[in-house]
């Protein structure tokens, strides 16, 4: 019996070890480069002879050609992500409340329009969006990226918030109406407090989506002072002899905040995604 148990445990490890390697090697490789000197990084070593934090100090002091605007770019990333989070939250919460609780006429049609936007591949929408942003004169303004990301984040946000808000008991609305509450009072005093967990999840979703976005960012913004860090990272590959060890140190700094936020809110994120994205 014990040998059979051991065998089944060994079988599990036989799956687990490849998963672990497959998942972690690219991540470890970033970390390895960020603490290596250029020579050590390019030698293919699995661990540097002399681990160093020089790359990070180079980044923080903006001492590399590609990093002259590092702090500016990280500020842009932050500003854009927070603006997208706030605006998406405001737009989507109002829409979900109107569709789900106020049963506004045409709500279904609006929901379908939102779902359509959600399912269309984002890279396909990028081309017309680029052209339209040009027509609006918004190209190279951070607002163009903010508004584009709000457009991409809102549909899923509305869908999830509508699902969550459909589950709230109708009696609350009835009671509020009988007490003579206005729609705004219902929204502010009943709806928002009850929806807080979903609102946190959706806000996080929108912030991460905007922080991580590359395609729209590099399409809509090209001026050194307006680009977020994602586009700045892309610039490293402009030449063949890029300082990869510094690129990886910057990339690590860029990747840590969203990863930390994702894990902090993982319970909400996974639950929200699994219930929202696909239904069996």
């Amino acid at each position: 019996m014990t040998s059979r148990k051991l065998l089944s445990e060994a079988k599990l490890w036989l799956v687990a070890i490849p998963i672990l390697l497959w998942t972690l090697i690219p991540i470890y490789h970033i970390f390895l480069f960020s603490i290596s000197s250029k020579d050590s990084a390019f030698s293919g070593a699995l661990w540097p002879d002399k681990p160093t934090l020089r790359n990070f100090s180079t980044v923080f002091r903006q001492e590399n050609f590609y990093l002259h605007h590092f702090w500016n770019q990280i500020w842009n990333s932050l500003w854009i992500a927070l603006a997208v989070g706030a605006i998406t939250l405001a737009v989507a919460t109002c829409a979900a409340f109107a569709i789900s609780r106020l049963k506004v006429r045409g709500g279904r049609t609006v929901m379908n329009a939102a779902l359509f936007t959600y399912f269309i591949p984002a890279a396909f929408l990028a081309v017309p969006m680029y052209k339209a942003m040009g027509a609006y004169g918004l190209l190279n303004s951070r607002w163009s990226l903010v508004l584009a990301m709000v457009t991409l984040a809102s549909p899923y946000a509305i869908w999830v918030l509508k699902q969550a808000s459909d589950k709230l008991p109708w009696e609350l609305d009835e009671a509020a109406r009988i007490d003579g509450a206005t729609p705004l009072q219902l929204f502010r005093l009943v709806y928002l407090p009850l929806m807080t967990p979903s609102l946190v999840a959706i806000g996080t979703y929108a912030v991460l989506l905007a922080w991580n976005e590359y395609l729209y960012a590099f399409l809509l913004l090209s001026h050194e002072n307006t680009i977020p860090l994602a586009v700045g990272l892309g610039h490293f590959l402009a030449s063949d002899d890029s300082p990869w060890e510094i690129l990886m140190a910057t990339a690590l700094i860029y990747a840590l905040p969203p990863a930390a936020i994702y894990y902090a809110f993982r319970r909400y994120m996974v639950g929200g995604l699994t219930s929202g994205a696909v239904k069996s």
Partner: protein
Amino acid sequence: MSSIVLPGVQPASPVEPPRKGLTTWQTWGLILIAPYLLVFGVFVLYPVTYGLWLARNPATYLRLFEDPVFFRTVVNTTLFLLIAVNLKFLLALYLSGFFIHEKRWIRWLSVIFIIPWAVPAIPTIFSIRFMLNPEWGLVNSLIFRLTALDGPNWLTNPQLAMAMAMLVHIWKALPFWTLILMAGRLAIPKELYEAASVDGASGWQKFKYVTWPSIRTLYLTSTLLSMIWTLGDFNSVYLLTGGQPADQTHVLATLGIRYIRLDQVDQAMATIVVALPFVLPMVYFMMKRLSIDDQQKTS
């Protein structure tokens, strides 16, 4: 903009029975839904209409079809969808069975397993890109150390480069779909498996007669949705190969952007329009599915 926005508000009948003060509530409903309508009108409806109008000239399509890069791209995209998505789902199906084991260390492993999904695309794809560098990359230096042979030029051979882009895509998206299929597996009542065990069913039989029938719909819907989204996977290809060598490794998503970079926006739009006959039915099907689910839940 209101002229574009308003038509969406007209149709559909009120779901709720009429009540006192309906007009105030409806008015507030319209006010609260207006911001999203504005966003949709200004940043989806108008751009798409404008884009389609730009791509109205048949000559644009002729030029597109004459571009040898386009033909290559269509082949690449088709292979990408068929191979990468299906391989990803077979792996996700298998791994979802692994990760539902109720062991503490497997739960910890699942936390690690999500990392590719949790971190942004650029750092990890660049990391893999350098790992595949023929001279200095980790992969080829390991191959050299183990076999004393030079490894292949992973990213300068078009076929290999496409294969690597598929691997990058799978690396990034596998955790998400594994989670989805895990949720499907966890929803299956345990009694079914217990009953199957009593009847002496083998592991394969349990999968074939209990697991698969329960998650088949989820599996197929997810595959379809993933195909739509993979069509828009710009990062896995662009950040790894940039379409190189010689524009041999583009997919539709990156080709559209390439045309924009070349200042041929009408051609970029045409690239997308060509894909619409395949994309729109899939999108329509997904929307149908979701709204049916939605109706069942609310009724």
